[in-house]
């Protein structure tokens, strides 16, 4: 394969990104670094939700549930027996879990697989529904997962949650995960299987008439998305180092949905950009929650005021740019050359690949 100019751009961009990561890892203070890690985790989560909502056209609102499954699985597998004993002071942990202690990477994979299994078990019946009904059913299942976690005292420590998780979500864990997710989604979207997903989204009946097993495709997409959500949840748990069932309410799903909708349903690029934008804004706007001094008058702290900004942004998008930042388009270097910022690429390169 001949190396094209666009390939050089991509290589240069990737190299610049790695340099940025190294520099960030070395020089950022711990707060900035934490926000950066959160960005990467949100990329994983937004892509996983976009896979079902944007690419397969299934309106699912159950993401927090699968994240919870992933987070708890990974936490219980990586915590040392001593930590578990400290955490479970109300009721002792079940014996078969007490001694389990795995390194992070296998635990992360198992967390994804367990979440995928949960996705399969829930998806198999729920995916017979469509549109709003599916949204309500998945939302319900996510709440059921949360309630079950709250009540399995001897396995999950119930409402007390788990504390003192090892801080495994470092730069060299979260960013490779984000990069892998992006690569997976890009390759999937370009492949024949990705086209099958989009065909199911655009017209189920016609997709069936093309010989696509519509139900199977939906379940595979749902379970794959759950895998990614489980991994994302596990990364989040190991970033915050503490998890409890209240973390995984509908609000968490809503935050991810916000990223997907703002970025553009069905656009990988949009999800990545919006994941950065929303995560950073969430932190930058934190001053809105505290007391403010305008010189002539002062306000008291109003926790949650920053969320109003997101509501306004969402309203603006719904009114003026229904398809989000990117619509369903993707990034390509030809965007820049068309805008005159880069020399025109060699003719004959198919940007859709």
């Amino acid at each position, binding site marked *: 394969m001949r190396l094209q100019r666009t390939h050089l751009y991509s290589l240069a961009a990737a190299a610049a990104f790695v340099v940025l990561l190294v520099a960030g890892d070395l020089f950022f203070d711990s707060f900035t670094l934490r926000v950066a890690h959160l960005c990467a985790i949100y990329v994983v989560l937004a892509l996983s939700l976009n896979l079902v909502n944007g690419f397969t056209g299934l309106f699912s609102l159950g993401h927090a549930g699968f994240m919870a499954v992933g987070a708890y699985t990974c936490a219980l597998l990586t915590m040392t027996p001593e930590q578990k004993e400290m955490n479970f002071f109300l009721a002792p942990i079940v014996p078969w879990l007490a001694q389990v202690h795995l390194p992070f990477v296998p635990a992360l994979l198992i967390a994804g697989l367990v979440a995928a299994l949960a996705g399969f078990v829930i998806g198999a019946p729920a995916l017979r529904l469509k549109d709003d009904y599916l949204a309500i059913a998945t939302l319900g299942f996510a709440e059921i997962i949360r309630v079950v976690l709250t009540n399995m005292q001897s396995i999950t420590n119930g409402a007390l949650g788990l504390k003192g998780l090892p801080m495994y979500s470092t730069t060299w864990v979260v960013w490779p995960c984000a990069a892998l997710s992006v690569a997976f989604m890009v*390759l999937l979207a370009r492949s024949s299987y990705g086209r099958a997903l989009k065909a199911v989204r655009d017209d189920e009946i016609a997709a069936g008439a093309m*010989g696509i097993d519509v139900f199977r495709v939906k379940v595979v997409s749902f379970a794959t998305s759950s895998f990614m959500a489980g991994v994302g949840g596990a990364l989040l748990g190991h970033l915050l180092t503490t998890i409890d069932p209240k973390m995984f309410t509908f609000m968490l799903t809503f935050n991810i949905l916000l990223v997907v909708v703002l970025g553009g349903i069905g656009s990988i690029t949009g999800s990545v950009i919006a994941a950065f934008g929303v995560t950073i804004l969430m932190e930058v706007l934190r001053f809105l929650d505290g007391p403010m001094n305008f010189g002539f008058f002062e306000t008291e702290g109003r926790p949650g005021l920053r969320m109003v900004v997101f509501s306004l942004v969402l309203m603006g998008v719904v009114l003026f740019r229904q398809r989000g930042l990117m619509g369903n388009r993707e990034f390509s270097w030809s965007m820049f050359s068309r805008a005159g910022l880069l020399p025109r690429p060699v003719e004959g390169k198919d940007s859709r690949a």
Partner: protein
Amino acid sequence: MLRTENVTMKFGGLTAVSELGIEIAKNQIVGLIGPNGAGKTTAFNVITGMNAPTAGRVIFKGEEITGLPRHQVTRRGIARTFQNIRLFRELSVLENVLVGCHLAMDTNLFAATLHLPSYRRKDREARAFALELLEQVGLHGDAGELAVSLPYGKQRRLEIARALATRPSLLLLDEPAAGMNPQESVELMHFIRRIRDQFDLTILLIEHHMQFVMGICQKLYVLEYGVTIASGDPAAIRQDPKVIEAYLGVE
């Protein structure tokens, strides 16, 4: 090739198709005609697995396919187009045809995503085949366009190309000449004969355009209120008093 035995389809109290018995031999072009609401599309839906019949059997190539899910029916070699065009709206013309090729590629999520060598080869073949099909239907110049941006006539041809991509042996066309002018329908007639010969097809079609039907079909079935009121070759159908009364009208 295809035989339906006493196929009956009831929706609640309404009998859409009653005791339908179609028999099609290999490489025949057969027409299904009748007034609106006679149950023609329902008959298509039963044959292609969109609806499971209330009673009766559908036999394709000697095997019973009654009530199989629709993708299984397609897998066995029956493809169809739709009366109200159902293209994949957000995919390009080429991608629409490639979705039809997905079946024959027989790949899975991982092989496709990882672009394994076996997948790459299949993908190349599928693209070549899809482009060839577009060439056949005269859409090779529009391969990169969005499917919905095509004019109506081209959308109909794209639906046929997409159906051919599943490599069928029986093709069901639901009103292929709808919305076409006389010139275009003559072209379509030649086109259907050509693909029949080229892809070794058997064709069953629904159409209201009488000149078209009489010109192309070797055998006709006439439905009215779900009941088959006549069948036979076009010349006999044209003379049949029941058909004239129910559908063709008295001149």
